């Protein structure tokens, strides 16, 4: 048995035991309606919190209308079960829950499409408005019962069996397994290429796009999925309480779930589960304190946020198999088998592009309002070349990079990559077509491990769908395993295999630079753009960097274009150099020619006094 299979087995056994315990205790009446009501509410809150964590924690977008999606699911499913009296309740409930989830997802998709294209807090404002709009619409629609709401919705705790205890136990089981399914699917999704793409957006949206992640699509995926789960939670809520009023799903309800997410730790699913359980149970425990309980509840919240500002668990996750390993190490040995070396699923291709330039620009230029930031830039990169792009501060070097990578769309000229025009394409597409880049100020996915940083860049080299990520199909396993090996191989080339599982932000500066280059290479580029790779490095680190760049050229068969102020590095490794000033190309040639070019010297050092006077005289004459 492999460790993975073992951990699956362990989790499933633990869940079955927990379920059996809850079911039998509820059926026997030891967990009476009061406690089972609390437990079911906890379960529904966990679904809400974990799904909100997908948007807020993993994607890093603030959403304030989660209760709105819950209400859509609640009303949809209640209306469906009400109108499907002919078939057994179990089936109509199933149809209702799925329909409720889907309808909520559709609404999420429609809201998310415009909102998620925007950056910053727009999503928060739009979702806030959406939640209120939903409430008003429900209050003014006759099919939802208007302001009076829906009553006498079939309740799970009564409908399954004439024996009230048994029916309660069935309700417990339904909520329990749906909760498990939601947690498990968000958990596995988070560990698939899609999950990594979502998390990379939270970590650094610009870098994610430059690494080849279609960020808008992934934001939409996460948001829609969260809405789907919230819709299901709403359906469960409707059939738990038996009554729906739109008033219940207001802004405060959304905030309540947000508090649970923040308290548990943004991005920690275990934290969400813990916080939802505590915050639902706490008011019940505090019932004895009558009106003091709101004060105690708030105090408990404030205290927790002061002492644990990153939430109860931060981004830490509980793992049963880890706990198991700690407690029962001796069992491990009996299960140990020789692990088979998995075969590589495929070998990444490095095309040879010998005769024509890999990257070419024709009169490239961009104008911001009246300011000409770059014009008539003509750059040619042959395969395996190392080319420098230099110029004084503000000359427009980074602007050229941003044009090449699609951060800006050029206002004139064209960019040809491997014979195809890429001008005006979105960044992630350009990345996937073969341009990788690093940034002047390092943009890593800081709270992800070194290995995960690399794997994000492998995103488009894998092909499994979100569904096979959630269900961990054979395709998922083989691709992930292959990529794991490839990522470690790549790290080995850069002597970083030993830090593969460390957090990116725990690396020393030089290694962070290296990792960024490594990540850019992982997207399999034909052209690598390095924006001031030696900035902030000491001479020894710079020396190492020169070595690294040479290794990259020979091993990865890429053309390298680098911006750098460190002339020793530029002169040391570049075969050709382009010089730009005021957005214009002023010189091109091998290092020794450039070093002696009078225009370049003038650009860097200004015009010498005597020349200046001479020119002034010319002007007078």
């Amino acid at each position: 048995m492999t460790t993975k299979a073992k951990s699956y087995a362990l989790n499933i056994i633990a869940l079955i035991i927990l379920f059996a315990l809850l079911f039998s205790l509820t059926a026997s009446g030891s967990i009476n309606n009061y406690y089972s009501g609390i437990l079911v509410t906890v379960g529904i809150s966990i679904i809400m919190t974990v799904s909100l964590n997908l948007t807020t924690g993993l994607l890093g977008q603030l959403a304030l209308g989660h209760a709105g999606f819950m209400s859509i699911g609640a009303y949809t499913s209640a209306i469906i079960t009400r109108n499907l009296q002919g078939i057994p309740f179990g089936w109509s409930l199933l149809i209702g829950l799925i329909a409720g989830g889907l309808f909520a997802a559709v609404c999420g998709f429609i809201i998310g499409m415009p909102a998620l294209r925007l950056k910053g807090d727009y999503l928060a404002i739009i979702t806030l408005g959406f939640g209120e709009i939903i409430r008003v619409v429900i209050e003014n629609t006759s099919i939802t019962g208007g302001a009076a709401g829906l009553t006498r919705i079939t309740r799970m705790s009564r409908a399954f069996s004439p024996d009230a205890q048994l029916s309660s136990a069935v309700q417990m089981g339904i909520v329990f397994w749906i909760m498990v399914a939601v947690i498990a699917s968000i958990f596995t999704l988070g560990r698939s290429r899609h999950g990594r793409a979502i998390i990379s957006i939270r970590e650094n949206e610009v870098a994610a796009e430059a690494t080849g992640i279609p960020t808008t699509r992934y934001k939409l995926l996460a948001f829609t999925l969260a809405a789907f789960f919230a819709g299901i939670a709403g359906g469960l809520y409707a059939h738990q309480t038996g009554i729906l009023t739109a008033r219940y799903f207001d802004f405060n309800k959304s905030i309540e779930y947000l508090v649970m997410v923040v308290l548990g730790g943004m991005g920690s699913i275990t934290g969400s589960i813990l916080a939802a359980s505590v915050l639902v149970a706490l008011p019940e425990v505090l019932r004895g304190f009558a009106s003091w309980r709101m004060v105690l509840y708030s105090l408990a919240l404030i205290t927790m946020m002061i002492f644990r500002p990153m939430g109860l668990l931060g981004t830490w996750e509980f793992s049963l198999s880890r706990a198991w390993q700690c407690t029962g190490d001796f069992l491990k040995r009996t299960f140990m088998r020789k692990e088979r070396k998995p075969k590589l699923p495929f070998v990444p291709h490095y095309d040879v592009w010998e005769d024509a330039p890999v990257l070419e620009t024709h009169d490239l230029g961009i104008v911001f309002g009246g300011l000409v930031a770059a014009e008539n830039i003509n750059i040619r990169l042959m395969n395996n070349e190392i080319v420098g792009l230099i110029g004084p501060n503000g000359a427009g070097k980074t602007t050229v990079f941003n044009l090449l990578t699609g951060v800006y769309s050029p206002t004139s000229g064209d960019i040809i990559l491997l014979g195809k025009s890429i001008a005006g394409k979105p960044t992630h597409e350009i990345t996937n077509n073969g341009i990788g880049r690093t940034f002047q100020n390092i943009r890593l996915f800081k709270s992800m491990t070194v290995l995960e940083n690399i794997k994000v860049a492998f995103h488009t080299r894998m092909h499994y769908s979100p569904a096979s990520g959630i269900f961990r199909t054979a395709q998922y396993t083989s691709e992930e395993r292959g990529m794991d090996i490839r990522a470690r191989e790549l790290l080995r080339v850069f002597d970083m295999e030993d830090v593969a599982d460390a957090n990116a932000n725990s690396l020393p500066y030089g290694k962070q630079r290296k990792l960024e280059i490594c990540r850019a290479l992982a997207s399999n580029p034909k052209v690598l753009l390095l924006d001031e790779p030696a900035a902030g490095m000491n001479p020894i680190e710079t020396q190492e960097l020169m070595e690294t760049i040479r290794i990259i050229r020979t091993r990865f068969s890429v053309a390298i274009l680098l911006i750098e102020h460190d002339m020793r590095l530029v002169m040391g490794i570049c075969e050709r150099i382009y010089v730009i000033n005021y957005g214009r190309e002023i010189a091109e040639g091998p290092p020794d020619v450039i070093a002696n070019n009078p225009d370049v010297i003038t650009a860097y050092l200004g015009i010498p006094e005597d020349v200046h006077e001479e020119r002034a005289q010319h002007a007078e004459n």
Partner: protein
Amino acid sequence: MKTKRILSLILAAIAICGMTIPTLAEDTIKIGGIGVLTGPAALYGLSVQKGVDLYIEQLNAAGGVNGQQVEVIWEDSQGNPTVGIQAYNKLVENDGVVGILGAVLTDVTKAVAEYANDIQIPMITASATAYEVTTGRPSVFRTCFLDPFQAVAVARYAAEAGIKSAAVLYDNGDEYSTGLFNAFKDEAEVLGITISAAESAGTDDVDFKSQLTNIKSANPEAIFLPYYGAPAALILRQASEIGLDVQFFGADGISNITDSISDMKLLTKMLYTDHFTVDATSPMATKFNADYEAKYGEKPSVSFSATAYDAALVLTQAMKTAGTTEFGPVVDAIKNSQVEGVTGVIRFDDHNDPIKSVFFITFDELGNKVFVKQLDP
């Protein structure tokens, strides 16, 4: 080996949890009280609580029920149906109450009533006025009258006063308000009163001027405001600001309007229906007012303290009549009761609603309530 040990552990755990703890002999009759005791609607819940507590104190002083003292355990619903259900479950399952007084707000009451109906535990609400609350729930009663009933009473009063055209401004997000509006409209049509304008606003709106301007241009003789006190106070002020000077009618929600209004003169234009008035002259009512003031140091501000007093009275009286606290006999006894309460003689119709009088009340220039007339069923 291992699995066997785990299994036996689980079985042991189940056995331990499954053991029922023997309960001590009951020496009090426990009744559950559910109401909104915190939050913006707490005034209603606290009024109900005060009314019930006052009666139970007097009852216990007089010897209790069937030789046992009565204890009311209060749980806060926070005005939230889910919390209300949790409160109900806690009272029934953990405290073992034999009757429920409450809940206070309509939607919470409807949610709790559905659960009470499951086990047919007697439940009496003092304040949920929506028709549907008691429909198809034989063990659920109320001691307040219904929204349709008071709206009809208002329409009849208006017709008697010779009013030919009336406008309505209501809250389209509130069940109480829409229910009253619909009932008023139907009855007005029957009585030949023209609804010259029907304007609506959202629940949290604070500016009603555009609606009031529309109403003004329709030129009605009177305006029906099915609102609670605080928004009604805003509407009265804004109406006077735009020079809309006509008679206003309201329902029982108006009863706490004096808490929210500064210019008491505006109130002289308001006439509303209530379950009870402090000016009522029956011996029970006089005694209630005196006792209430003695215990709490203030006059009852919301009439629900009177209906709550009556709810506690009806429930405990039925337990006395039945000679037991078993659900079935107590429910039957409530159904057949004919009790002289603070708000009049209470008996129940087929729908478990009380058949009782409506009081019409207006205000003087100082904001004191003035009893106008009583309309008997």
